[in-house]
């Protein structure tokens, strides 16, 4: 049996990698994928904790996160496509009509 803290640390590392990706990438799609990665690290955390506590709530939470993530993907892609129609680009550095 592997200790829970290992999972938590692994999840934290994945989360941080995802967050770094969000900060560094300029392609909206890749940023988006990084966000999904962060969500999945949270799922890992929840599963590990649910196992530690021996109850199902953490696992239910994971289901919900997956469903929400799917909805988020759908909405996000739709917005992205709408944006491409205006700008022909998914580089977020070019999105700056609205500023100070």
């Amino acid at each position, binding site marked *: 049996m592997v200790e829970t803290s290992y999972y938590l640390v692994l999840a934290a590392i994945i989360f941080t990698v995802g*967050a770094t990706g969000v900060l560094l990438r300029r392609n*909206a799609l890749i940023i*988006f994928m990084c966000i999904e990665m962060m969500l999945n690290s949270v799922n890992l955390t929840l599963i590990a904790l649910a196992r530690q506590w021996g*109850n199902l*709530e953490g696992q239910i939470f994971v289901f*919900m996160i997956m469903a*929400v993530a799917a909805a988020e993907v759908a909405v996000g892609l739709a917005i992205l496509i709408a944006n491409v129609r*205006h700008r022909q680009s998914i580089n977020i550095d070019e*999105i700056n009509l609205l500023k100070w």
Partner: protein
Amino acid sequence: MDTALLFDNAVVLLPELVLAVGVMVLMMVDIGRRGQNGSQLLAGLSVAILLLGIGASVMIWGRAPVEYLDGAISDGFALSVRLVILIAGVLGVLLSRNWFPAIERQGGAFYSLHLLAVIGMMLMGTATNLIVLFIALEIFSLALYILSGFYRENARSIEAAMKYFLLGAFASTFFVYGCALLYGAGGSSKFTQIHETLATGGGNPSLVLPGIALLLVGFGFKVSLVPFHMWTPDVYQGAPTPVTAFMSVGTKAAAFAGFFRLMMTALPSFHDQWAMPLAILAVLTMTVGNLTALRQSSVKRMLAYSGIAHAGNILIALVAGTAAASSAAAFYLFAYAFMNIGAFTVTIALERQYGNENDVEQSRLAGAAERFPVLAAAMAIFMLSLSGIPPLAGFFGKFLVFKAAVEAGWAWLVVIGVLNSAVSAYYYLRIVVAMYFQQPEQAGDEKEQPFVPASRSSVFVVVVSVLAVVVIGLQPGLWADLLRGLGQ
């Protein structure tokens, strides 16, 4: 398991259920309609559904708080927040009517999303469980991402949606990570259960504080606390103005409601640890919000920064963390709903007038008082109320929050809050000065333009808002009695 469990206490969620059924009806009506006129029908239907929701809330008002399936509760606080959100919802629908062409084509989608956002916001105030809290947050966030980009012909609107979505999703991950850690700390997703486990020395206390830190990020983003506020002005400016009006109030009310309930029922024993960072956030938020608002030229951006500053004020109530403070926050949000939506409505009416599709520059307001005396007078009242001049509604929101904070021993925070509201008078007043005390630069051109009357529904919204701001100010006790805090 007993099937009756599903129905026992389901009345707790009556307003949400009414709206949910209403959304489905709305969607069915939408696919059944033919031609253009249906859009008005859909607007009427949405208003009717929301009014039914208000009726449902009133029906269960005053009942003893009961919990539904460990996930939602109907106490006075939840009902108060629901009322604020439903009112914002009704006013938002009324404003959207006729606002932009997309409504004509896609009215069904627009109003369904609008109602879904309302459902999510209301759930946020009733949730007593991390999972429900998260789902509620996502329901209204996703709906709002789409609504902010609904003006598809306008590049700014799409850009607002894009920014809101990317940053919102990013912030949500922190929020949900915080939920996970809190679950790990308390071994349950139920607020009260987490509190009990931790208070009796069980659980993993080492996960609590990082969990709180991450949850703060998620909430901080939604209510736009500095430094999580950067999206606010862009999205407020880019989104269709009726949507901005609705979400500026609804998001704040919902997120603060969830925030209050989580911090005060799951984590009251850690008040000493979280109060100070929240106080610092409040100071930052008020100060940065107000100072940045001083330099804005667009009305919508100015209102966005003012919204940030108001979030800082409401946060003071959470720092105090008492029952009285939570009811003060409910009152604040109630007052804020009217004055803020009112201000945006006047902005909408002026947008129409100036033909400047989705925003108004402050310089365009010069001389507005002579051309639109009624609109200008209403705007002046909203501005005075927002800056906290008694005896208007906004003053009592601030007053009650500050009072609760002083009682809880946060006098220094109140000093900063009051100083900040003195600063805020400057930019609110600048609107009044522009409207009353300045001449339009090209007087000739402006007067040539024919007068475009505001739509009837926005006139209605302005009238209701003005009346509310004045009446709440004259009889604040009545409303303060009605709107309850946690544990009251």
